[in-house]
């Protein structure tokens, strides 16, 4: 196609060709083309098929307000082709077709509309329930737009940016640019967001006169240059604002340019004040086949020519209701489009200058006429027009119908921020009624059409927004009054048309293109009793499609009011919600999809063959071989010595005169009796007595304590302790040492022999016994906090080492342990080892409702410290003696059968409990586990029936036995 190359408004460079693939064939577009304009240039008129009836669809608004031109681009479904710039090598496919968009085998569905009335699914697919799976399968085949597989991973780079500003202006048209310039001149920081890739808005593509000899296009360029010259305006083009919230938080997304490091990025702006200058979109004219390819809105037809250099057709009929239509007709006529006729909905009130030009060019103009039907099976061939009352009609052959009922303001940004709208009879608009605090509207939103008025309203809004910023100059109130005075002298809002539908029955007159909803469907919904637009919207799905209500948004409430004969004041717009423009989920997700913490030993354990798993916020070595039963690791700990990286443990220092009081508040034990050098195992409960954490507390010095928490609770511990002491004003301080200290757990009968080789203190059982704490240095350099604990049930030293020395100590132990066959063991081996000792892990042997007494830790609780107001103590006192609670029991399986899976249910004729952890124990040579069961099943010797998921009639049987299973006297950890 030859393009109109001489236009100053052109945004494409036809000398720079871009190749792309469409339906397997190579085509060329020009640099600056969108996918849609490139396809159109190559003769594509039918872009896809509609959701329900598989009707052919084509270019309509050119701003992505409907799903007509959603296509699959590079494997990504539902790409809005009108807003997506063409890139080299793009692969483009049509959607929702069986065959091709031209010849869709499902096209017959268009004739089946009688079988699919409004609310079809609700009414017809109701009973019998049996047919549902079958019907669903068939419907899913026929309906729905793009296809995507569940494991699809979105390609591309996504970013996010969080900004602060004084004034945020939404819309880079004349009003928005004026507002931004006004605020910037006050020295304020301004952000300007424009959804198209360039500034200029309503002026940018028009050649009409702005003032004197300057065209609107030149004026747009002039303003854009001024904006770009202002250092304190941060400009975001190709950026849609998709959410506006109270407190003036604005969210949006930006499409990356070639040189940007992102494809799309999420933008969140916190502004002091906001100017909404989002302008207008066109209100669709509703007549028969009003979405046939070849029917397009004024802006679409005009911008195809002026921006992309393509005449949208050869012979055209206009059916319009706004001066922009007359202006477009003149411009397109001058560019070579043959205009058969202009049907103007308005009987009078047209701009006289435009009327004279139309008369001079001898373009036939019919006032008070409107298009009633587009003819042509796939694309427009003819059009019928009639007088508004439907009395007289004419038919013209044509390949293009430019149709638009009038303008609709883009008010979503105002209502989403909880501003209110009111129907205005003069403009036919929903005008801003109560604006959100520090938010101002400007420009065509008010129904302004005169270029000078549009700019003046932008200036006024900019001054007001600037005045809201404390840093604005004090003289601005006077300037605001001045600007208001100027506004009153300028042309005000223009009268808008009220017509919604041409005189048609409406069976094929579409009010919503995305959801294939017709005027007839709306009538059916109203007949069924859905009398409010908000309900009709849901029942017919009108406006629920990917266009976010851009097409039916205004027409629906207007039509419903007209049909019901309601007075104007009762007309209410339907609600809109963010995102106002369809946004990719990956844009919201942004960067850093795989986030986790690593311990200081991460690298070394990986070298040693560690198999890592994400556990909570951490990545930890779970296994050290591909034998996930960990037999070797376990046996080595039981027989020789093993080494575990326990750095994920929560580690805290709590000190100060009121330290004991704070500990007593959250720990169930009596901390005042704790002696220096001794370790106390204790637990924390919540206010319901449910156990949330366990760990050990050590007294390091006077009023100075060191304690550990479980890995999962480390993040909340400071918050928890401060929360429960927030009224007391106690004098204590807390330091989170979780990341600055690492932990090595050296366990096994040979642990002492290994440690002796690298430290010079006496490690004998008499000098450093079980449950004792010592601080010492390794090589006079590395400070160590050492604890003798027995989590895995063997002689163990838990060494707390500064993170930066972890690697050194690890290597020293490994060297020293060589002769004793030291080996790594991972989290799973530890899990089995501690389970054999019936040492619990919270979250595994407990869930949210499990209290301290249920898991058998009641002995930790000191009930004689009421004055401490320990968190959970009141609830524990109430829970004591409650026979209905679960109890933690140990069990062995019968007949030497395997261990049930964790989480398997304990049943008889109903569920009586569940298995917490169960494993085949190598140390005991049988399967053992712990389970939470109803109290009456907790007696030793009780037979447990264990049900696993999908086990059918097969059951595993177990018997309640005494805990612990391994080394009941605890000799091995105390040796």
């Amino acid at each position, binding site marked *: 196609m030859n393009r109109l190359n001489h236009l100053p408004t052109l945004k494409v460079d036809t000398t720079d060709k871009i190749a792309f693939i469409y339906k397997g064939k190579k085509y060329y577009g020009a640099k600056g083309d969108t996918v849609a304009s490139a396809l159109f240039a190559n003769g594509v008129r039918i872009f896809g098929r509609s959701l329900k009836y598989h009707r052919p669809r084509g270019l309509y608004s050119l701003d992505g307000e409907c799903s007509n031109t959603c296509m699959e681009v590079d494997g990504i479904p539902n790409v809005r082709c009108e807003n997506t710039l063409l890139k080299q090598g793009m692969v483009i496919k049509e959607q929702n077709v069986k065959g091709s968009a031209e010849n869709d085998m499902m096209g017959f569905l268009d004739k089946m509309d009688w079988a699919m009335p409004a609310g079809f699914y609700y009414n017809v697919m109701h009973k019998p329930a049996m047919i549902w799976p079958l019907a669903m399968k068939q419907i899913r085949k026929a309906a729905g737009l793009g296809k995507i597989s569940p494991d699809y991973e979105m390609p591309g780079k996504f970013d996010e940016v969080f900004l602060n500003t004084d004034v945020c202006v939404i819309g880079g048209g004349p009003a928005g640019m004026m507002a931004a310039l006004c605020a910037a001149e006050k020295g304020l920081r301004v952000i300007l967001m424009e959804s198209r890739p360039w500034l200029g808005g309503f002026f940018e593509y028009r050649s009409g006169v702005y003032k004197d000899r300057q065209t609107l296009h030149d004026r747009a360029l002039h303003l854009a240059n001024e904006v770009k010259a202002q250092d304190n305006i941060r400009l975001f083009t190709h950026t849609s604002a998709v959410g506006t919230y*109270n*407190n003036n938080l604005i969210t949006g997304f930006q499409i990356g340019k070639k040189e940007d490091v992102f494809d799309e990025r999420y933008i969140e702006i916190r502004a002091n004040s906001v100017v909404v200058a989002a302008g207008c979109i066109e209100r669709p004219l509703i007549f028969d086949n009003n979405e046939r390819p070849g029917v397009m809105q004024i802006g679409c037809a005009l911008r195809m020519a002026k921006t992309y250099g393509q005449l949208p057709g050869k012979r055209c009929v206009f059916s319009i209701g706004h001066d922009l239509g007359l202006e477009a007709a003149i411009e397109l006529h001058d560019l070579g489009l043959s205009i058969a006729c202009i049907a103007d909905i308005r009987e009078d009130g047209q701009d006289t200058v435009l009327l004279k030009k139309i008369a001079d060019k001898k373009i036939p103009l019919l006032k008070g006429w409107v298009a009633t039907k587009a003819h042509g099976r796939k694309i427009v061939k003819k059009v019928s027009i009639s007088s508004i009352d439907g009395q007289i009609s004419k038919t013209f052959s044509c390949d293009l119908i430019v149709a638009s009922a009038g303008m609709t303001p883009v008010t979503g940004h105002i209502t989403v921020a909880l501003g209110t709208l009111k129907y205005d009879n003069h403009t036919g608009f929903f005008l801003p009624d109560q604006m959100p605090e520090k938010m101002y509207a400007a420009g065509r939103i008010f129904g302004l059409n005169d270029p000078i008025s549009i700019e003046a309203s932008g200036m006024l809004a900019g001054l007001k927004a600037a005045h809201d910023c404390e840093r604005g100059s004090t003289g601005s109130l006077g300037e605001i009054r001045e600007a208001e005075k100027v506004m009153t002298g300028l042309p005000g809002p223009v009268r808008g048309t009220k017509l919604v539908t041409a005189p048609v029955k409406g069976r094929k007159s579409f009010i919503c293109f995305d959801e294939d909803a017709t005027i007839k469907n709306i009538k059916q919904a109203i007949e069924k009793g859905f009398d409010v637009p908000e309900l009709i919207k849901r029942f017919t799905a009108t406006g629920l499609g990917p266009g976010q209500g851009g097409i039916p948004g205004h027409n629906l409430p207007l039509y419903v009011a007209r049909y019901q004969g309601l007075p104007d004041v009762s007309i209410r717009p339907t609600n809109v919600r963010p995102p106002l423009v369809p946004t990719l989920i990956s844009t919201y997700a942004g960067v850093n999809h795989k986030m986790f913490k690593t311990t200081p030993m991460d690298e070394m354990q990986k070298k040693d063959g560690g198999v890592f798993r994400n556990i909570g916020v951490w990545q930890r070595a779970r296994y050290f071989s591909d034998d996930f039963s960990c037999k070797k690791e376990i046996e080595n700990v039981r027989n020789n010595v093993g080494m575990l990286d326990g750095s994920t443990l929560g580690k805290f220092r709590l000190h100060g005169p009121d330290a004991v009081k704070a500990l007593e508040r959250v720990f169930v034990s009596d901390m005042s009796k704790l002696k220096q050098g001794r370790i106390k195992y204790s637990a924390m409960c919540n*206010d319901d007595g449910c156990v949330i954490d366990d760990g050990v507390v050590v007294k390091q010095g006077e009023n100075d304590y060191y304690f550990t928490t479980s890995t999962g609770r480390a993040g909340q511990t400071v*918050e928890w302790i*401060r*929360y429960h002491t927030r009224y007391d004003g106690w004098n204590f301080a807390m330091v989170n040492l979780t990341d600055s200290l690492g932990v090595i757990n050296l366990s096994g009968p040979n642990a002492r022999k290994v440690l002796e080789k690298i430290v010079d203190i006496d490690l004998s059982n008499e000098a450093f016994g079980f449950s004792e704490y010592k601080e010492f240095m390794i090589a006079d350099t590395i400070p160590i906090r050492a604890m003798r604990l027995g989590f895995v049930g063997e002689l163990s030293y838990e060494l707390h080492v500064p993170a930066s020395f972890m690697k050194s100590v690890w290597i020293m132990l490994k060297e020293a342990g060589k002769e004793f066959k030291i080996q790594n063991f991972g989290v799973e081996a530890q899990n089995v080892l501690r389970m054999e000792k019936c040492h619990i892990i919270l979250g595994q042997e407990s869930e949210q409702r499990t209290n301290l007494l249920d898991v058998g830790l009641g002995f930790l609780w000191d009930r004689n410290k*009421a004055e401490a107001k320990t968190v959970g103590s009141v609830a524990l006192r*109430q829970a004591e003696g409650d026979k209905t609670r679960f109890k933690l029991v140990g069990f062995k399986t019968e007949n030497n059968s395997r261990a049930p899976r964790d989480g398997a249910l304990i049943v008889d004729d109903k569920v009586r409990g569940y298995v917490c952890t169960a494993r085949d124990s190598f140390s005991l040579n049988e399967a053992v586990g712990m389970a939470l069961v109803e109290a009456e099943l907790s007696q030793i010797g009780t037979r447990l029936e264990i049900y696993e998921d999908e086990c059918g009639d097969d059951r595993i049987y177990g018997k309640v036995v005494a805990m612990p299973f391994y080394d009941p006297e605890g000799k091995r950890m105390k040796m």
Partner: protein
Amino acid sequence: MALTITCPICGKRNGYEFKFGGEEKGPRPDEKDLTPTAWCEYVHMNKCVAGVQEEWWFHKDGCGSWFKIHRDTTTNLEMEVPKVKHPAAKIGGGKSDEQA
């Protein structure tokens, strides 16, 4: 999150940085003679006012302190501390200025 919160130490910050800590209900009651009902009231029952309420927030991504603010639950905006108590202004939880 549209909410901003003024931390007494760090100043006005984005609501993302904070964690909600419930309505202001006063200090923990004495355990002596505490009935289960009274305890349950204290722990679990909330006023849930539609209007301005006094509530606790924790600056988790900041200084790590607990503090109280007034917030209008209908607009999700932080409010100035009400100085004079007007009968129409509903203040949820805690002691009012008059009682204090």
